[in-house]
């Protein structure tokens, strides 16, 4: 084994892990506020990756392409909330119980996936790199050869995460969102438009999916069926970090990415399964995750 392989794997893992963390942060904000998540979040990432691919191949510059993709994903998030989330309000005691949203959001994911498949075909595609001229451009640091693209993806994802925390914990909007999460009725009495907040969290989640899609494109091959596994991994990441803790989710994502890069290197056949199984065992042992708290079920 080359002595530099470990840091290289770390960087690869951190890049993907940072993207997983962005996807999982989308789960965090909607789970916090309305106790629901989009089971098609991974498919939304896939859609964003394809939108990015299209805008790039239309020779639109990156700095214009990203806002376009974000706008498209905002629209999709709006549709999701309107079609799969809002109609279920006040129907908690339906037959499917509190779980109808899992199936409705999965339903939207199926439709979205099918449309992408019809438009782009089933085959895998390569997305051009965002930052460097060449997918495999390398930079030499202390004798290690690191992929420039990966380093910049990590940096961008960290920036997005930092902006998200500022938004969530420093801005008035974030305060309103947390107020609605804590007690929607009290928040409404304080003049917060809870209806709008409940829509807004899904828009924020969609934006996070958009950025994750933009960033993941150059790291992996893009294909219409990549969404499900992204959803699963991001859910596991969120569970490991603790769904109630954004810092935990970031840590969980990075840990998971590194573990995955390592185990993929060791075992190319089943490498992606080990971190998944390990993470599930961890959640079974510590259901609140590494950083989360769990309230008892006292109704």
């Amino acid at each position, binding site marked *: 084994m080359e002595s530099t392989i470990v840091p290289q794997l770390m960087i690869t893992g951190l890049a993907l892990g940072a993207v997983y963390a962005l996807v999982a942060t989308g789960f965090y904000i909607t789970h916090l506020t309305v106790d629901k998540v989009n089971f098609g979040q991974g498919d939304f990432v896939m859609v964003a990756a394809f939108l990015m691919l299209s805008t790039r191949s239309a020779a639109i510059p990156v700095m214009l392409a990203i806002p376009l993709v974000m706008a498209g994903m905002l629209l999709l998030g709006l549709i999701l909330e309107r079609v799969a989330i809002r109609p279920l309000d006040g129907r908690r005691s339906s*037959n499917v*119980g509190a779980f109808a949203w899992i199936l409705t959001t999965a339903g939207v994911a199926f439709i979205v996936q099918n449309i992408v498949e019809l438009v782009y075909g089933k085959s895998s595609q390569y997305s051009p790199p965002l930052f460097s001229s060449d997918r495999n451009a390398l930079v030499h640091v202390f004798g290690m050869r690191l992929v420039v693209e990966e380093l910049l993806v990590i940096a961008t994802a960290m920036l997005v995460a930092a902006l998200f925390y500022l938004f969530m914990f420093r801005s008035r909007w974030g305060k309103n969102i947390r107020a609605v999460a804590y007690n929607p009725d009290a928040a409404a009495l304080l003049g917060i438009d809870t209806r709008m907040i409940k829509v807004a969290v899904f828009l924020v989640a969609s934006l996070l999916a958009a950025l994750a899609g933009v960033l993941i494109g150059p790291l992996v091959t893009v294909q219409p069926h990549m969404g499900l596994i992204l959803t699963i991994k991001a*859910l596991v990441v969120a569970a490991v970090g603790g769904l109630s803790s954004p810092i935990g989710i970031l840590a969980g994502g990075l840990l998971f990415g590194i573990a995955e890069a390592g185990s993929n290197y060791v075992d190319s056949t089943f490498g992606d399964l080990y971190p998944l199984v390990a993470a599930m065992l961890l959640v079974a042992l510590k259901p609140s995750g590494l950083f989360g708290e769990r309230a008892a079920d006292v109704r």
Partner: protein
Amino acid sequence: MSVDVKRAQGRAAPLAGYAAFVAAVVALPFLPVSPFVLHLAQSLCYTAIAVIGLNVLLGLSGQMSLGQAGFFALGAYGSALAALRLGWPVPVSMAVGTAVAAVGGAIVGVFALRTRGLYLAMATMAAGFVVEILSQRWVGITGGAMGLTGVPQIGGDAATFLALAAGLYLVVQIGADYVNDSFAGRRLRALRESEAFAASVGISVRRWRAVTFTGCAALAGLAGTLFAHQSGYVGSDAFTIRLSISLLIAAVIGGLGTRSGPLLGSLLLLGLVEFISGVEKFGPMIYGGILLTVLLLFPQGATGALVGWRRAPSRPSAPTERATAAGGRGLSLEGLPAGTSLTVESASKRYAGVKAVDGVSIRVAPGTIHGLIGPNGAGKSTLINLIAGLYRCDAGRIVIGTRDVTTLATADRARLGLARTFQNLQLIEALPAIDNVLLGMTRRRSLGSDFKDWLLRRDFEAAARTEALDILRFLGIEHAAPCLPRELSYGHRKLVELARAIAQRPTLMLLDEPIAGLNTVEAREIAHAVKQLRGLGATIVVVEHNMEFVMSICDAISVLDHGQLIANGTPDAVQRDERVVGAYLGAPAESAEVVA
């Protein structure tokens, strides 16, 4: 809200429907139908087996699984490999396959015990995904996408396989119907409402959840074994998340929590699959569209739509009866055990530095009504939950009668004779009032004789129902027996909850704010009923804010403030206690004197 089909149809002897099914299966091969129809009939039977499992899991116990395809695959590979590689006879290999799936279910079931809701959905989806990947890539064992070929088939002709699949389906359907109608169905539905509630009526939450999850996985596995031996070929393509979602679609589309839902839903699913095979390109879109349509427009599913169309909602027939009924007519109750004493010895409970209950000692004499009062945040609810077992004491002891229950779980305390009602009212919304009362009763017959009665007698659980009706009559709401909780007034729902507590034959009752939200007439009914219960020897602890109510019914009162016991005694003595007056008026005793 689940439509209770049994109630809508009256209780027809279940045998007739089963006999009709057997006749259809026996007749089918003799009819001029194509082999394709026989093949579909086979598929229908095993699909329905898997869907029945999901129906019990999601429709009754309220647990979500997005990974049934994984258990289906475990059953299929288990049976196929045992028959193919080990040469075991097919019936044995099928048992092996089912067992493998059950073991897989038990392992994932660890999650079912530790987590719920979103986490359980995630865990089952991930487990299904792991099995899917293994079946694709572990080519040495599974053959991957090329699959296993030459898996021994059953009997050799389509009719034999159909008979086997139909027979197994029938057994599973009968078992599920029994679960649906019997004590087990009530308990699973209670679990679905809330775990704290289920534990409070003596249900071992963990055991029931684990057994349900494992059983449901075993049923998916059994379906998988039949699939493996149907055409002699097992390929990994069959076991994707799409199968898990398909089974969920079948369960929902048929009508969750209904008896005939799984068969109907499986039939619709197979029709859908045949339809989609013509337009494969749009497959996922059609699945997604159906999920949205059914969940948003027809959440009751096909069975619910059919039954809802036949049945107008039942209305309580007699609001007039209420006036005469007010709070019971002094009827006696058979078999209410004599009340026992309750001793709380310097119990403490703190949350994150706040002492919610701080060294409180209370003694409740047998056969008395003991009030627990105090301003908001005084620690009353915490104390009630410490006694009920929902919380554990940080220090101190709880003794019921002579038994120290400090470390016992809620369900064990309930089985020792502790019954409670909830501040925010806990009833099974999907079942009529009388079934809610039955939930409180323990099964007093063996499982076998209960099952036999269910299968053969029209008056299943007749004795228990009579008893439950007696309790409802005692509380003056006999007419509410066939009504769903949502069809009743708030006051009557509270009475139904009280009836359930009485049905537990408690030696100690905890009533948490029994008249909160009631009007004065309803409050008087409750007061009357509670006094009647004391007359029958019950020991009752009441938490309540309404002073008039508390002072008029209690033999003794304990007053809490800031987690501490500040007064204890008869209503008169407590009312005159300066500290109590101070706690309630927020004024120190001295300034009260100055004002006076």
